């Protein structure tokens, strides 16, 4: 791990020690459930030094006092600095295929045409995933106009949510989309970037949500399908369990949750039923609670 000599310094020469980082990580863990261990130390040091510089705190103790008082929403700023937001359209396409080939068929079994189908992307980062879901449905689900499809994108990072609302993407984010799809759902803007169609923007609701805050999560209920990819890996066992239980409560009975390809719910919580479809393994809240907990 980093020695004093290799610890990063900001432009103002601010230096952080291992003890400073430990206190910060403990604070972040209490507030967000995100656990940063030693192998992410360099990453943490850099972000921390950046925040100390940005707030002109001058030292870790001064910064930490500012953080705890939450002056100028520094907690939010720090969380924003610590979350990784790089993603792209149609990432994990097999799950989108699974949604239209298997999940939705089961979801509509208990619904009449015209009723709502609720889909949640959490964390939604800068919007690539919820927009991908909407485009995928229009391109691949012949019943797309028969139900009232509500897509919600949520993230803890308000900077990412702002970007999602603006909906401007570079070539890297769009690399998996065909030219035809880009031409139909985006408008070119400066520097080779593309802005999402206003109609598509309007069809997604973006909100801030913290997966381990049960009272905040109580606002979200009745989702038929939840995409929750590559976030549980940031949590330790107990936060992961809290997040899983919160997600369980957010799902409608019989609703599904899709995790990232390296994640598995089975080791986190016994509440969910494992469903193996040809395109993906997903987890289901049982139709009746007696089947689960």
């Amino acid at each position, binding site marked *: 791990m980093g020695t004093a000599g290799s610890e990063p310094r900001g432009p103002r020469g601010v230096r952080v020690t291992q003890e400073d980082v430990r206190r910060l990580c403990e604070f972040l863990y209490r507030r967000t459930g995100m656990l940063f261990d030693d192998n992410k130390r360099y990453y943490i040091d850099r972000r921390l030094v950046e925040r100390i510089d940005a707030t002109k705190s001058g030292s870790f103790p001064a910064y930490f006092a500012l953080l705890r008082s939450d002056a100028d929403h520094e907690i939010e700023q720090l969380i924003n600095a610590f979350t990784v937001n790089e993603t792209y359209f149609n990432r994990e396409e097999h799950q989108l295929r699974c949604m239209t080939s298997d999940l939705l068929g089961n979801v509509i079994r208990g619904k009449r045409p015209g009723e709502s189908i609720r889909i949640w992307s959490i964390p939604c980062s800068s919007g690539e995933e919820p927009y991908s879901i909407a485009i995928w449905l*229009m391109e691949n689900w012949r019943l797309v106009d*028969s139900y009232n*499809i509500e897509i919600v994108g949520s993230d803890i990072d308000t900077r990412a949510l702002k970007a999602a609302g603006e909906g401007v993407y570079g070539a890297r984010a769009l690399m998996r989309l065909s030219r035809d799809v880009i031409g139909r759902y985006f408008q070119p803007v400066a520097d080779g970037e593309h802005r999402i169609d206003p109609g598509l923007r309007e*069809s997604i609701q973006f909100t801030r949500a913290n997966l381990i805050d049960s009272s905040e999560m109580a606002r979200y209920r009745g989702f038929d399908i939840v995409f929750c990819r590559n976030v549980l890996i940031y949590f330790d066992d107990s936060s992961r369990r809290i997040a899983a239980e919160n997600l369980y409560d957010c799902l409608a009975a019989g609703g599904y949750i899709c995790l990232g390809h390296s994640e598995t719910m089975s080791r986190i919580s016994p509440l969910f039923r494992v469903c193996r479809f040809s395109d993906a393994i997903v987890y289901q809240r049982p139709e009746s609670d007696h089947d689960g907990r």
Partner: protein
Amino acid sequence: MTDVEQAAPPSRRRILVVDDSALVRLYYRDALERAGFEVEQAINGIEAMEKVLAQPFDLAIVDVNMPRMDGFSFLRTLRRNATDVATLPALVITTEAGEQDLDTARAAGANFYLVKPVSQQDLVRHAAALSGAPT
């Protein structure tokens, strides 16, 4: 070239799509624009009425279930209007497939009635026929 593009009328007919779902409006608009139509949108009957009184259209595509003013109420209001807009062709799209719903749509003044799901190809075909677009 897709089926939607093959059905493209050569002239720019103007269509008003009335649906409370942004996703459905986009799904219909995408098909119609690719087929060469010019598309305006409204989120309910009230907004649709304001638009037809302010701009010329060749066809209204109208969902039935909408908040504030539903598709049937919009059509009744439209047909009672004292100006030319009263004769605007209207294609009603609904989730209800019953005999009675068809009668209600006819009585409200619908020229044609489609039950969801409506494919983009079918939408364009009926839009072309009802708007009088040359084929």
